Every structure is written in C-alpha cells, then in structure tokens.
C-alpha cells in the first residue's frame, strides 16, 4: 500500500514514474530482451540496407560515383524528379489546406464521403493509379484521340508523370491537417470573424500560425513520396532515357544494365533525401512540442 501511494505521489513525468519504483518496474531481462529485439530489427532491416547503399555506391571509388551522378541521363532524371516534386507538392499543399478547411470549418452533406475519397490514394495500388491515367489519356483511352489530334502529350511525357505523382501524394497534407484542425476547433476563427477580420486575415493570422508545424510535416512527407514514387510513375513514363526517367526509374534501368555502382550512386541520392526528410521531420516534431508546451504554460498562467 505504501509503495502504491509513493508511486502515485511521485511528481512529474508519467513516463518515468513507473520506472522509479521496484514494484512497477519491469524485470531487467524483459527490458533488455525487448530493447534488444527492437534494436537488432532496426539494425538488420533499416540500418544495414542504408549502409549497403552507400557502400555499394562508393565501392568503385569517388570518381565512379561522381561520374554516375553527372552522366547526362542521370542529370536529366534528377532534374525531372525535382521538377515533378516542384509541381506536385505546391498543388497538394493548396488542395490539402482547402480540403482540411472545408472538412473542419464547414458543415455539409457528404463530408465523410470526401474524407474517404481523400484516403483513396492510400488504399489504391500505385500501379492502378498509373493505369487510370493511361485509360483516360492514352491513345486508346477516352481523350486519347483528341489529344493526339491536337498534339498534346500527357501520357509518356512530363504531364503524365506529374499527374501520377499528384495522385499518389494527394492525401499527405490533408491527412496531416484534418485531425489537427479538428482538435483546435472553430472558436478562434469565429472570434476573429466576429471582431471583423476578413477571411484572408483570419487565415494568415489565426489559422496558419496554429497549423504551421503540421502543415510543414505534411509537406515534407508529401515531398519525400513525390520524389521516391516508382509504381505509378513507371506505368505512365514510357521509360525514355534522358526524357521521361525519374530518379527511381533511372536506378532500375542502371541496375538492369549491370551498372551496379551507378545504380547505387543514384539510389544514394534518394537515401540522402530520406535522411534529410527524417532530420527535418524530427526538428519539426521537436518545434511543435516546444510550441505546444509553451502554449499550455501560457494557458496555465492565465
């Protein structure tokens, strides 16, 4: 009984509270076992492949590595990947904010249907996403003959790749914002409106500061997926070297050409993108946590 009361009376962080008392603490071997399993799993399935990518990329020396990255086809793949992300991410940023706003601030029929549709790209295989666009814009598809007659290229060209990328990265921003904005409610915006602020002003000065970390987080994830997407892009690309090859597709081509050092060199760029994404993501989470605790302290003071 005494042990329990002390445990309950222990101040501070609930995460460490149970660790402090022998009565509630796990046995050391259980702790070590669980820790060991998760760490070795992490090392084997995540760290090792990552190290292997860089090891293979640099195995034939830095010269080969740099030559692989400055090859005209590789450069064009990098350019196309950056371009695709530069178009897809802003589009999904605008869409994500609009969708999250509509869902959390307005009441309308079919709201749940809209939420379900936003999730569609998560549940559909990327290959299907690509095939949809082939069926719609392909030469045998609905708009194909018209597009061909007007000499507009969508499939097997840059627009198709952008479309497929937009499709698969569609939910990232909206999905990040909806729960956040739902939790924050509408009171602050309503107050701003009552005080006479315009719609834009409310958005810039009230909503955006509240959602900025969640928004950034969504954008980061969206960007990582946009640059790394393989399946959907593979279907609509046509695989023309130096023209419609993105980085992930270029990796596959190089690998298939027995050009392993070059394949891993380009893959290492994608791996670095993943690492940068992780670092930025951690930073954003940290900032958001700081932000939240500062706000709750402010709330307590008031």
């Amino acid at each position, binding site marked *: 009984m005494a042990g329990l009361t002390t445990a309950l009376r222990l101040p501070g962080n609930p995460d460490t509270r149970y660790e402090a008392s022998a009565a509630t603490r796990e046995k050391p071997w259980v702790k070590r076992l669980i820790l060991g399993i998760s760490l070795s799993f992490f090392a084997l399935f995540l760290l090792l492949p990552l190290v292997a990518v860089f090891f293979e990329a640099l195995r034939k020396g830095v010269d080969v590595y740099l030559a692989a990255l400055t090859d005209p086809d590789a450069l*064009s793949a990098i*350019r*196309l990947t*950056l*371009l695709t992300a*530069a*178009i897809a991410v*802003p589009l999904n940023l605008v869409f994500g904010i609009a969708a999250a706003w509509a869902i959390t601030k307005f009441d309308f029929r079919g709201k749940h249907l809209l939420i379900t549709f936003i999730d569609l790209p998560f549940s559909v295989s990327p290959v299907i996403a690509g095939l949809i666009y*082939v069926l719609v*814009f*392909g*030469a*045998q*598809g609905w708009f*194909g003959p018209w*597009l*061909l007659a007007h000499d507009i*290229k969508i*499939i*097997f*060209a*840059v627009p198709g790749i952008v479309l497929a990328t937009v499709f698969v990265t569609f939910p990232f921003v909206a999905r990040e914002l909806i729960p956040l904005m739902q939790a924050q409610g509408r009171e602050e915006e309503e107050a701003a409106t009552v005080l006479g602020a315009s719609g834009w002003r409310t958005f810039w000065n009230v909503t955006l500061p509240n959602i900025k970390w969640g928004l950034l987080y969504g954008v980061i994830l969206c960007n990582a997926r946009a640059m790394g997407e393989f399946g959907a892009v593979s279907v609509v690309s*046509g*695989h*023309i*070297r*130096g*023209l419609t090859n993105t980085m992930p597709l270029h990796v596959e*081509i190089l*690998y*298939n*050409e*027995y050009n*392993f050092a070059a394949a891993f060199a380009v893959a290492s760029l994608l791996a670095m993108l993943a690492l940068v994404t992780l670092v930025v993501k951690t930073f954003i989470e940290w900032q958001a946590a700081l932000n939240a605790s500062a706000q709750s302290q402010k709330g307590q003071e008031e």
Partner: protein
Amino acid sequence: MRFARSYLIAAALAFSAATHATAETSLLNVSYDPTRELYQEFNAAFAKHWQAKTGEAVAFKQSHGGSGKQARAVIDGLQADVVTLALAYDIDALHDKAKLIPADWQKRLPHNSSPYTSTIVFLVRKGNPKAIKDWNDLVKPGVEIITPNPKTSGGARWNYLAAWGYALKQPGGNDAKAKAFVAQLYKNVKVLDSGARGSTTTFAERGIGDVLIAWENEAYLAVKELGPDKFEIVTPSLSILAEPPVAVVDKVVDKRGTRKVATAYLEYLYSPEGQELAGKHYYRPRDAQASAKYAKQFALVKLFTIDEVFGGWRKAQQTHFADGGVFDQISAR
C-alpha cells in the same frame, strides 16, 4: 509573395527546359530488354553514318522493357518512330489494336524484317552442378528454373515455344505429351519475372535458381558482364530460331516527319556495319560475311522455326498465350 512568384518562374523555366529538348531530329526507338547494349552502340554508329551522308544530326532516345509491355505502351500513345521488339506478334498488335502500321509490315524489310536472329539457351552456375545438358534435364525434380512470364515477355514466349518444340520433336511426341512436358517444366520455375533482364538479374545477381532459360545474346552478355568464372552457357540439342523483328511506326513517323531517317535507320541494321555490331553483341547476323566472322562464337544447334512447328506467331499466340490458352491452363493447375 515574392518568393511564390520567383518559385513559379523557376518551375516554368524548368518545365520548358524539360519539354523542349527536341530541336534537332530525334528518333525514339522502343525496344525490348536485352538490346540495350546493342542499340547504344548502333545508334552512335548510325548517327555518324547519317551525318556523313546527309549532313543532318540525329539524336536517339531509347526505351527498354518487356516486349509485350513495350508494344502496349506504343499502342497507348508512346511516340515510337521505330519499334525493335522481341517477336512479330508484338508488332502485329500495333496493327491489330491501333492501326499504327499496315498489316503487311513484315514484308517491308528483308528476312521477315528481322535483321538478326538468336536462339534460346541455358545459363547454369559454374561447373554445372545439376548436370543440365538438354531440355529434358529441366523437368527433373529438384531443378529450379528462372524464366520470365510469357504473358509480358517476348523472350519468355520463345523459351516456352522452344521447350514445346523440343518435346514435340522427340520420338513419339505429340501435342498432349508436349503440353505435359511444358507443364512439368513450369512447375520447376522458381521466379517468373516480367522481363528477360529481370530474370537474368534474379538468376545472376540474387543467386536464385539452378538454370536460367535465356536469349543466347542475353546469356553471353551476362557471362561477359558478371564473370566468366561464375556461369556457363549450355546449348541444348534442339532450339527455336528466334527472329526479333523491327518496324517503322507509320503513323508516328508521318506525323513527326521522320519517315526517311527512320527507314534508313532500320535499313542500316542490314548493312555490313550493322551486322558486325549485331554479331559483336551476340546476335546471330544474317549477312554471310559477318556470320562467318562470328561463327566460332556460337555453338552449333539444330533450329526449328515458329512457322514450321506452330504455324506462325498469330496462331502460336492464340493457342498458347491468349487468355485461357495453354499457358493459362498449365499455370492454373
């Protein structure tokens, strides 16, 4: 806002740079997997030849993948000036499904529009530990086979038909026995990749399986690229004469105004230099001189043609690879 504007301008610039890279004449050659190395060299040779002959510069774009998949992409609008695919049926499809070329396309160039030929051989691990000598060794229990999927890969269809033809030509062979033989063979298949190159990588790089059924040129290339100390080529007693055909895509070249150069490009495949390059990349040249030069490179093998055993590609496709065809019946079991 200023940031947003400069961002838009940068994106627009990058976009136009990406789409407007086609000032000089360019040809898109849509091909199948194992020809990457051949066309890389041949394109450079032709560009030089064309420049010397006409003074025009010509640039090439290549797209490679499983033959059936590539044909599908051209039908769906991939703007190929020429197609160089694994088998005639895939080019027939360009006529049947989209009327991109005339029905008699195969008569427009010599030798059934196939400037080079190949056949189907086995690639085994060094020392041939499972003692694979001929097709009947493949159906033995415990032999793991790597071959691509006949539904998507042209090479895989040649593999399948070569096995079928072998069984048919054994003493007392008939269609029922051939079907049983091929079914037995596909039971031993460990991985069914979508294209020939994928299968080679599975076998050679990932180290899966005892034997890879492959294009002869693909097998030679794998040995050369990945180490003669690791693999051996086994030529069976009997195999199929594989004729990978080429064609100009009429609808595309007429629209883009590239008919002349595209036609010259394919004709150049038949020239001494083209034939020489084909031999160098382990295709069997048609030209007598190049043939003689590279004769030592290839094992002597009895070859049958698809016309004499299967009555042509359309019929073979219909019987074996169409939905519900023999391959489906075999794999359903």
